[in-house]
């Protein structure tokens, strides 16, 4: 297993090429190109903005804070997470041709999915920056140093889940359908369209604490949106530690099932 992990480093060039291919292939032939990745979140954003900022009593965020910026801070990482999960779970099946016909470490496929979506996430940050300039709401610059750490934690956490799910999906195809429903549930269980600072959320904090995405989303919001100290740092680091353990476990399972892929996909 450790040997395989080390070998993976040797495939950097291939991973890089495949991510580039993934991105190029997706937007080849479409006029708006990568912008399409944000039509869906932007649409969501406009609807939720309307509902939460205009219809419902404006208690989502602290007074005179721009709701759009707040929500985008949570929605962007969530989109990365969700797309990675949904695409990644089926990545071994859709890439079956490669696994069966080419000598090729299978874990590259789910990893490429997560990384390609990370690139989308990075591009989406530009849109977020645009929103911030428009609404004249800027983060605390000194806290921004923690931003890469949050991304890293989310990356490890997502990779762990996607590796595990992709391997299991080869044998249990219904995971993909199950996952689509689970992600909707998970979305609402994560403070993206509402703020964790609301009193109602505090009442359920015991439940929320079990959701790793809760801590990741809150971390993004504290760093990118809210002013004041980064109080959630300890939770973030804890989730980071859990993610590393989870990743090792997921890779172990993946490695155990590896030989069955070429025959089962």
């Amino acid at each position, binding site marked *: 297993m450790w040997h395989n992990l080390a070998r993976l480093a040797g495939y950097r060039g291939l991973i890089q*090429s495949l991510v580039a291919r993934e991105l190029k292939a997706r937007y080849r032939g479409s006029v708006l190109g990568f912008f399409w990745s944000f039509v869906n979140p932007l649409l969501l954003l406009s609807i939720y903005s309307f509902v939460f900022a205009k219809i419902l009593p404006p208690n989502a965020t602290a007074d005179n804070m721009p709701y759009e910026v707040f929500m985008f801070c949570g929605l962007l990482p969530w989109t990365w997470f969700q797309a990675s999960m949904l695409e990644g779970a089926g990545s071994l099946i859709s890439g079956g041709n490669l696994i069966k016909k080419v000598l*090729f470490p299978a874990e590259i496929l789910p990893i490429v999915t997560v990384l390609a979506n990370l690139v989308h996430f990075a591009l989406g940050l530009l849109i977020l920056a645009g929103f911030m300039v428009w609404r004249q709401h800027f983060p605390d610059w000194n806290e921004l140093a923690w931003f890469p750490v949050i991304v890293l934690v989310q990356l490890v956490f997502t990779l762990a889940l996607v590796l595990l799910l992709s391997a299991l999906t080869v044998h249990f195809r219904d995971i993909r359908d199950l996952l689509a429903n689970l992600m909707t549930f998970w979305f609402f269980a994560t403070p993206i369209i509402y703020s964790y600072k609301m009193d109602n959320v505090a009442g359920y904090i015991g439940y929320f604490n079990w959701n790793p995405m809760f801590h990741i989303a809150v971390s993004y919001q504290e760093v990118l949106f809210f002013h004041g100290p980064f109080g959630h740092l300890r939770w973030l680091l804890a989730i980071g530690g859990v993610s590393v353990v989870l990743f090792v476990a997921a890779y172990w399972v993946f490695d155990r099932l590896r030989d069955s892929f070429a025959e089962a996909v």
Partner: protein
Amino acid sequence: MNVATPAISLVNVSKLYRRYGGRQFATLKSALLSGDLVKKLRPDETFQALNDVSFDVPRGQTLGVIGRNGSGKSTALKLVAGITKPTSGTVKVQGRVSALIELGAGFHPEISGRENVFINGVMLGMSKREIQARFDAIVEFAELQEFIDAPVKTYSSGMYMRLGFAVAIHVDPDVLLVDEVLAVGDEGFTHKCLDKFSEFKRRNKTILFVTHSLGMVERFCDEAVWLDSGHKRAQGDPTRVVGAYITDVERQEEQFLAATDERSRADAGSAPGPSSAGPADASDVAADMSRATEGRWGSGEVVITDVAVLSDQGQATHIFHTGEPLTLRLRVEAKRKVSDFVFGVGIYNAEGLCVYGTNTDIEEHESDSFSGEAEVRFEIEALDLVEGTYKLDVAVHKRDGAPYDYHRLLYTFRVKSRLKDVGIYRPRHRWGFTGGITLRSRA
């Protein structure tokens, strides 16, 4: 690297494929409820693709692997390529391997040929710089200079295949694995590929070659291995192994044809009686005969009890080579004494075209009397037919055509030929040349 170490070495290799029969529709829930997930991943059935196979390919040698479909050839190749692992035994390969198994397997249809060359090259183990250096050679080899910047989805299957082949062959492997890829591509490209293989051989590279083209094995390979349902049946000199393989294939074909004939005869029923179905009215017979499919009918006063197609050694067989003698032996029995009888034979090709038909009446044998049991022999001195499957009509009927016992297309034989000439009939012939023409025999 030690010269004595073989480039490819398989030692007691077995490969068990698991067949997940009923598990296809099992759900995660049931797997979780039943407890151990890993336990549930155990197969319901297994299929032994390779069974204790060992062979070595020394460096610089070309080994041909032959065998029927499903004999384990491709599995052996995949094991050498490292795509699958053996269930038991060891597979050792020295040096860089390139597998021409699924050409262009990693191509993405939406992006250009150029980008695909790079990604495919990286996938096959080349570095970016190596690909850069060989890019022009790859494109030239694939003959795709004009289209290299077009998305691969616009390529024809031939272009796709050529590009895949060009990339794989420019990996410059120490060990090249080839799986039946030359079947595609036009004549010119096939020649180019063969030239490339020859070049590999000259440069002392090792080639493992899986194919159904036995001629190629004889021409190209230093050694051949014959796999039969996962077992190694023979290994050694290509001509000898190919010969043994062909003999075995013919034996199997023989069995298959015998079984087919058996079945159609069983369907046609036993000796006909007066009540048996079929055109009883003599005037209908001529019209129906050409239309009727296989079957058996007649009044049953005279029956053909046994039909045998015999080789020149007098053995019943279904396989003949062009130009060999063939004897048709009919055992007949007259239930009562008859004086009006004609024996007839017809040969039809697979399309149902009558190749030849004759009977004793046409050939001016006047029937006199027949009672009890007898034997009729129809001897063909040389079966001058081109390769193909042929069916036989045999009949005994009255001079006006009313059948006693008519066997329609119930017997099959196959003619094999080394030459792939066309048509039906091969007249005995030879070529003659005078003047400035010189030819060399390829045989």
